């Protein structure tokens, strides 16, 4: 079942189009990361899903609840961490959490238990009696997460803090969210521009750019959509020439693969040819690489480029490839060794 569904979601602010026909499906019980650059529509998406903003057209549902028309019901099952939703500066962290737990109908004793559990897990227990205006930015971010989790929401919506996340906060958040997703089946939707963090936290992703959803799915689906290939990395013995198609990189020699199954064949052939292989591994593309590729046109554009390369014979492709076994003519080597 999908925890979050948006249908042709569009939002316009006067002349600015923040979202354009976004159709998103977030399965229940997964950590889903929506990535995009500045002003890509991430915050608007989160605000609409949190019931704080009315879409210009289209509709959105969280656990089957209309996010705008049933916002009170929505807030009973979904928590939200937004930059613009803060806690009371003059109250202590503990007072804030108990106050918001009370608003969410959490029993006083349960609230104290929950507060203790969350603050310990987020490593901010020692700040519980400090007023919020005295907390550091990182602690505030974690406190906001604790506030959103006080009523045990089934869906958690997170908009990345304006200033990004410091390492410690990011680690604590990731650890806590991973626990809740795996142990309690909570669905997390994180909107961020930090691709590395999104990749660490999420198992499924969406790429949004200028209000348009470019792609969504797991890494493999994005990779196919982006037309980006996995790479093989080989570390060879001193002075040894790499198989054909490999180019020099910091860690050794690398080459784009059509599929992962290609690597064992490359390795066995290289070993057969007497090469000393110290390391051979597949390097999948990072989310950032996929994001860049998707913004540049994705698989369609790659297809066009491939077509261009085939048409232009070998002159374009061979400029950076290593010669086969020291052979000066890579084409000749290719004919001899097949794969290489």
């Amino acid at each position, binding site marked *: 079942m999908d925890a979050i569904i948006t249908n042709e979601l569009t939002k316009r*602010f*006067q002349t*600015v189009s*923040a979202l354009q026909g976004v159709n998103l499906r977030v399965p229940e019980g997964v950590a889903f990361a929506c990535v995009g650059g500045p*002003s*890509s*529509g991430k*915050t*608007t998406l989160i*605000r609409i899903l*949190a*019931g*704080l*903003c*009315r879409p210009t057209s289209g509709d959105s549902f969280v656990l089957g609840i209309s996010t*705008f028309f049933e*916002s*009170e*019901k929505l*807030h*009973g099952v979904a*928590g*939200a961490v*937004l*930059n*613009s*939703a*803060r*806690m*009371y*500066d*003059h*109250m202590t962290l503990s007072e804030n959490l108990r*106050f*918001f737990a009370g*608003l*969410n*109908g959490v029993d006083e004793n349960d609230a104290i238990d929950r507060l203790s559990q969350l603050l310990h897990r987020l490593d901010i227990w020692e700040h519980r009696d400090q007023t919020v205006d005295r907390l550091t930015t990182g602690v505030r971010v974690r406190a906001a997460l604790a*506030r959103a989790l006080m009523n045990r929401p089934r869906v958690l919506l997170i908009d990345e803090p*304006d200033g990004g996340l410091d390492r410690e906060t990011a680690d604590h958040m990731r650890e806590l969210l991973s626990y809740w997703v795996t142990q309690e089946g909570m669905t997390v939707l994180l909107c961020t521009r930090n691709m590395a963090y999104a990749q660490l936290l999420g198992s499924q992703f969406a790429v949004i750019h200028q*209000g348009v959803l470019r792609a969504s799915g797991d890494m493999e689906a994005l990779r196919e959509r982006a037309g980006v290939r996995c790479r093989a990395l080989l570390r060879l013995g001193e002075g040894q020439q790499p198989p054909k198609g490999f180019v020099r990189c910091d860690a050794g020699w690398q080459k784009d693969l059509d599929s992962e199954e290609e690597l064992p064949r490359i390795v066995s052939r290289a070993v057969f040819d007497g090469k000393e292989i110290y390391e051979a591994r597949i390097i999948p593309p990072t989310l950032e690489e996929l994001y860049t590729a998707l913004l540049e046109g994705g698989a369609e554009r790659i297809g066009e480029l491939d077509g261009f390369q085939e048409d232009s014979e070998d002159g374009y492709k061979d400029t950076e490839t290593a010669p086969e076994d020291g052979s000066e003519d890579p084409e000749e080597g290719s004919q001899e060794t097949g794969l290489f």
Partner: protein
Amino acid sequence: MRKDLNAIWRRKGIRALLMIMPAVLVVVIPLAYFATISLLPVPETAHRPEVLLSLLSAETAGHGYRQFWMDAFTSLMCPMLFLAVPIVCAVTSAACVFVSEKENHTLETLLLSPMSSRSIFNTKITVCVMVTIIISVVSFFVFAITVSVADIVISAPFFMSLEWLVTLFLLMPSVTLFSVVFVTLLIHRVGSVGECLQTVGYILLPFLVLFLIQFTGAIRLNALFLGVLSVVLFAVSVLLFNFSARRFNADSLFSRTGSI
């Protein structure tokens, strides 16, 4: 509700304003006036303005010069000073409870709770009206004691009248509700508590003009007039309350083109 009351009480500036302003309006000014008319010599040729005399009760005509001016002050000027108390308190408390929450980004967090925006709105209005009425009633009793003592000292007629009763029980609550609702209409536009407090003038000015016009002799704000004014003001407040309550939702409060 307790959180909103704390929010008003915890801010030193707001607390001082809610305590000092009423004290100045209903104690300091009447005492200063009383001291002035008691201490200044009365010239033998001094006579009471006929226009003002016609506005006061027949009982006043039989009193002396100082008693006349004390009665004129308590009957014509003091209701205006007293009504300034609910206006200032209502605008201040509403600014603190509504605008300050919006300014500090806590209103959005409240709206993320399962409470309906309507019930959040109603609760905040209730707090503001309650605080204002309590302060106004306390102010009235302090004012009554101050003026009564002054009346006794200079043997002026007792200040309490039907007009005062209408002002206290009908006009003051209506003015309070109107002032609070007026601020809620502005929360979409104003960006800070200070900016909001400037709107006190918009509400205060019509009442100031209304009461000062009496000194021209053109009108007399009698009990009937004040009663009708109270009812009209209450009806307008209820209409504006419903209008404002409908606009009190996250989409309308936080619609912006900033971060998208």
